[in-house]
């Protein structure tokens, strides 16, 4: 069942970029992602799953870059949730292999997913509103630098927070 969720997420991630930009290059990258995802779903290995997630995101970004559609927060959040729905169920499937799964685990996971979806949509909406207000005050020349610094800050901040917490345990 959990493998089916991951497979469905992979299918959605593979279908979305060619719909945004029906270009052979985007379709090829999405197909590569689907191949990696199929390998991950069948073998339950983490490496192909992570690679598939990165390839799907690349196809999505490439499609956006080529088609240049209007900014859509909802679609992007759904893309992120789908990436998570690809990686997380595979981890669950690994843990459930040759094991008895308590019904409460499934219930707990389902509730967690619902809460996450709602939280992610809310957070995306808040950030979109804040970013809209901030964009007008940022000079155009400084925007790329600010974006790069922000991106680096997010990744470093997350990594540091996780590692510090792990050392404290």
């Amino acid at each position, binding site marked *: 069942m959990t493998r089916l969720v991951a497979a469905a997420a992979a299918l959605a991630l593979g279908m979305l970029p060619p719909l945004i930009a029906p270009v052979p290059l985007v379709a090829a990258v999405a197909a590569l992602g689907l191949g990696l995802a199929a390998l991950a779903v069948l073998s339950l290995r*983490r490496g192909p*799953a*992570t690679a598939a*997630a*990165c390839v799907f*995101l690349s196809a*999505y*970004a*490439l499609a*956006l870059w080529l088609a240049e559609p209007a*900014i*859509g*927060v909802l*679609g*992007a*959040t759904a*893309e*992120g*949730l789908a*990436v*998570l729905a690809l*990686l*997380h169920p595979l*981890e*669950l499937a690994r*843990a*459930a292999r*040759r*094991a*008895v*799964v*308590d019904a*409460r*685990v499934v*219930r*707990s*996971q389902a509730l*967690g997913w619902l809460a*996450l*979806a709602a*939280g*992610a949509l809310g957070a*995306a909406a808040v*950030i*979109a509103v804040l*970013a809209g207000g901030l964009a007008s005050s940022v000079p155009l020349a400084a925007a*790329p630098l600010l*974006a*790069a610094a922000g*991106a680096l800050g*997010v*990744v470093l901040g*997350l*990594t540091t*927070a*996780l*590692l510090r*917490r*792990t050392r404290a*345990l």
Partner: protein
Amino acid sequence: MSGHLTPLAVSLVIVVAWAVALAVLTARPEPFVAALPIVLVLGLATRRRAPALTVTHEISAARVIEGEAVTVTVTVQAPASVPFVEVLDAVPAACAPGAGRPRALLALAAGGSASLRYDLHAGRGAHGLGTVAIRARDRWGLRAWDSVHTDRKVVRVYPRAVPLRSLPRPVQTHSSVGDYVSPVLGEGIEPGDVRRFAPGDRLRLVNWRASLRLGTLYVTQHHRERNAAVVLMLDTLAQAGPAGDDTLDHSVRAVASLATAYLARKDRVGLLTYGGTIDWVRPATGALQYARIADTLLRADVVFTYVSKDLAFVPPRVLPPRAMVLAVTPLLDARFATAALDLAARGFDLAVLMVSPVDVTRRMLRGAPAERLACRLWELERRASFDRFRRHGIAVMEWRPSDPLEPVLAAHGRRRRPRVAG
């Protein structure tokens, strides 16, 4: 409990980094927004403490017979809710899970508990249980806390004994009361001889018919009913066949069956396991003696050693005079034949039950013509080796483990002359 980030967390960090990089490279906010749910999940993983878990491990029975199942119950309790707990109960190599599985994914509510229950089928021997590996995870499986709980328990799986009615009869008996009719006259049920009345004879022994015919008092003498000492000698020098169905397992079951049957006849039964290590149980009677023999049989295993064993190591009380020695062997090691012939030379009443390794090995093979021929040659070679025992007057019984033991012993009982000496 030791906590650590799971590989999934590392994967998610890589995906977030990649998404943010894509957002910067393509100058589009969508990849960054796509990374938001993942960032949210990673953020949740930073604020979680190690859960306090209490694990209890229970088994339904500490002593079972081969083929019976032991139900194992592992219960996990937690004062706070734990959304995701992996439980793995370590199963010994000689055991196989039956109904249920020794691995489970559980979710615990605050103050609640969850259980893992499964059946375990174990082979003969003493098996250690009670080591439970626990991995608690946060809801998203990004952080894990590992621990191992040990509550050591031993499950003893005794060999299954089959009821036997026909047994090899011992040639000599002992002084205690038993089931064998001794040629020595005395108190008993079986009538023996008639002789003249002597002072001191009991009045109820008077044979009135003979007395009236001969005009003087005659008494009927009876044969005594005596028991015997039987020493079961188990060959643990070598074994053949698949685990759980090898010649040693069949030999142990045969020894358990023979011990049960001889003890039921009030005989004094002892055990001698002859192999890399020599172990013994002195002959005695009663239910407690069976428990001693069964406990020794649990330990019976093939132990390789360069030190050659000799019957000189065995105390004389283990092999009492006038005891019948019943050797149970697949006859794969020549040292056992030497030891058995040594016993026969020392005057022991010896019978040998050969457990066929050919039969056990044949079942493992696919039945190719070359394999069938090899088995046939092996069988002929073994039969030729039996003559070595027969030349010394030793009774040899060949038993194929796929067949019941009773007919083999019954056929031997008919051939063996019932000359029980007191």
